[in-house]
């Protein structure tokens, strides 16, 4: 065979690594023309959209900055955030928040990435609230102290090294939740604060956190049960999941209010605890279906490789299958939890004063007649900030765990 070698190949191989793609030189006008005015249809869409955005922003901004009377928020600020929680015990909530701030700062120093953004956002929120003109000076001190805690946590965390540090911080995060509950409730360690005065954002976030903490493991167990080979376990899980998914959350709340006292006699289960149980059981059914989707996405070869190595089924699930399955369902799970966070507003119907419930009582107060726009807009903003933080954290987590890169 007659082999002809290409004389350009050697030079091509040598230069191929150093040559860069041609620079993008279209400039601002070029970009505009290419993306916004490339055809008559595109031009029309651009003009209509700009006009629409202008109209909406013009009206709403002039109301928000002009006509709206925000004193109603200032007057009810504490009520919106902590409900009727006694003023002289408020330091307990501040202390709980300080624990979170300190841990946040430490995690920022240790892990950077997502934690950095969350810490900065948290400090920013503290700051915005602290410079509001109507905030009392005592509150301001607490807020600035929390900012200081985040920052000093960061500088300490940056200095810390060693494997045990990260484990200790994770353990501290896990511990912080029961500590917070004890701080807020009292439980004899501190003077008891009856749960019927818990309210506002405090109540909403507590129900959400409890819901996440309990529904997550329960959901995993239900998903594993649904794929189990034991028929009784499988049927139980299928029945549970399908019954819960077939009823609205509000009926679960009513059932929890009326049925639990019927079944469990002899001691009183608190209203808020009943709601927390209801939310956890409800969300677990949806979480289970998400996890099941994740389990189904794992190739059979992964199960076989684990089995061939002699791993028992629980170990195979724990070390090989679940880590991959859960990683794959982070987006769906966080979506579920965001929706749960917003659905907690339904507890107002069974007589609790969560964020929305408090909002309703404020607008029905004759002193604040006609101020419902301001109140609901502010409450919507709080919901949005939390929900957006959750979705942002989830996107960062997906990235750092490499979902979709495999």
């Amino acid at each position, binding site marked *: 065979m007659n082999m002809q070698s290409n004389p350009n190949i050697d030079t091509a191989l040598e230069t191929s690594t150093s040559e860069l793609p041609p620079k993008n030189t279209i400039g601002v006008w070029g970009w505009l023309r290419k993306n916004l005015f490339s055809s008559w249809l595109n031009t029309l869409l651009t003009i209509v959209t700009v006009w629409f955005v202008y109209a909406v922003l013009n009206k709403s901004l002039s109301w928000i900055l002009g006509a709206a009377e925000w004193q109603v928020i200032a007057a009810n600020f504490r009520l919106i955030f902590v409900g009727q929680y006694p003023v002289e015990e408020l330091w307990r909530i501040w202390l709980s928040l300080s624990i979170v701030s300190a841990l946040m700062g430490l995690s920022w120093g240790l892990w950077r990435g997502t934690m950095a953004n969350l810490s900065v956002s948290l400090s920013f929120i503290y700051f915005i609230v602290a410079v509001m003109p109507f905030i009392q000076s005592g509150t301001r001190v607490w807020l600035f102290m929390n900012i200081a805690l985040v920052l000093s946590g960061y500088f300490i965390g940056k200095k810390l090294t060693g494997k045990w540090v990260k484990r200790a911080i994770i353990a501290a995060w896990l511990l912080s939740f029961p500590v917070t509950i004890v701080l807020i409730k009292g439980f004899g360690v501190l003077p008891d604060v009856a749960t019927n005065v818990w309210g506002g954002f405090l109540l909403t976030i507590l129900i959400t956190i409890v819901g996440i903490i309990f529904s997550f493991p329960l959901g995993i167990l239900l998903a594993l049960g649904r794929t189990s080979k034991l028929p009784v376990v499988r049927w139980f899980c299928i029945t549970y999941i399908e019954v819960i998914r077939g009823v609205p959350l509000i009926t679960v709340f009513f059932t929890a209010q009326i049925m639990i006292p019927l079944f469990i006699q002899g001691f009183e289960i608190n209203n808020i605890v009943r709601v927390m149980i209801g939310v956890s059981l409800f969300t677990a059914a949806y979480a289970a279906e998400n996890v099941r989707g994740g389990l189904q996405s794992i190739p059979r070869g992964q199960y076989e490789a684990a*089995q*061939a190595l*002699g791993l028992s089924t629980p170990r195979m699930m724990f070390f090989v299958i679940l880590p991959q399955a859960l990683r794959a369902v982070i987006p769906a799970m966080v979506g579920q939890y965001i929706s749960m966070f917003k659905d907690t507003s339904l507890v107002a119907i069974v007589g609790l004063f969560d964020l929305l419930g408090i909002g309703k009582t404020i607008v029905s107060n004759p002193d604040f007649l006609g101020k419902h726009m301001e109140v609901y807009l502010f409450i919507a903003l709080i919901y949005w900030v939390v929900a957006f933080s959750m979705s942002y954290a989830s996107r960062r987590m997906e990235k750092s765990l490499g979902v979709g890169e*495999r």
Partner: protein
Amino acid sequence: MLLDYKLDFNPDTPLEERDDIIVCKGVNKWYGNHHVLKDVNVSVKQGEVVVILGPSGSGKSTFIRTINGLEEYQKGEIVVDGHRVANDVAEIEAIRKETGMVFQSFNLFPHMTILNNITLAPIWVRKWPKAKAEEIALKLLERVGIPEQAHKYPGQLSGGQQQRVAIARALAMQPKIMLFDEPTSALDPEMIKEVLDVMKELARSGMTMLVVTHEMGFAREVADRIILFDQGVIIEEGTPAELFDNPKHERTKLFLSQIL
């Protein structure tokens, strides 16, 4: 040497005088009504290298997977190292402890580093301390030629490297038997050799091996015995010389003419 643990037989004994480590008697398997294994009888001696050939769909992969219980069978009996492969979970786990398996698609655990892939089973099944498991894992990685990859993830390795890790992962359990299910079929041609070289080395060190493959060169060079499957039946078996140079059965001749 690829193995640094003692195999429990004397490699100087001639093959015929060694004990059987795998005995399959009248094994039958159906998928629904489809009869995939028909009265398969195979015995494998300690340290023997058996290569299983056959066209695709002949049941050869299914057969090798029944040996460590990844596939069930409905009739007959399989005994591996004194344990019966049946419904008893403890017996199956005992067999899997002594039997390494390498798959066509590697099946490394993508969320774990190479080192963790290899040490997972030694730590949790063999109950070795982490330090011992890691020491063995690093030695094995060195022997399969990729010590520098220990802290990478499977997705960062080439197919040939992944398959060598998979072999190291199986060997880390210090098994008595290695099963290979088409280990080079998913590899690019230039990577096949690096995997076959490791397998040859393993065969030389006395490992009992059952290999399903299409690599005729490997079969001829390494196998003590070749078994030819077709439609769930063993058509012919014998040494490479007998089978390649002097096939008795028409089906064997046809198969060899198609593949060589």
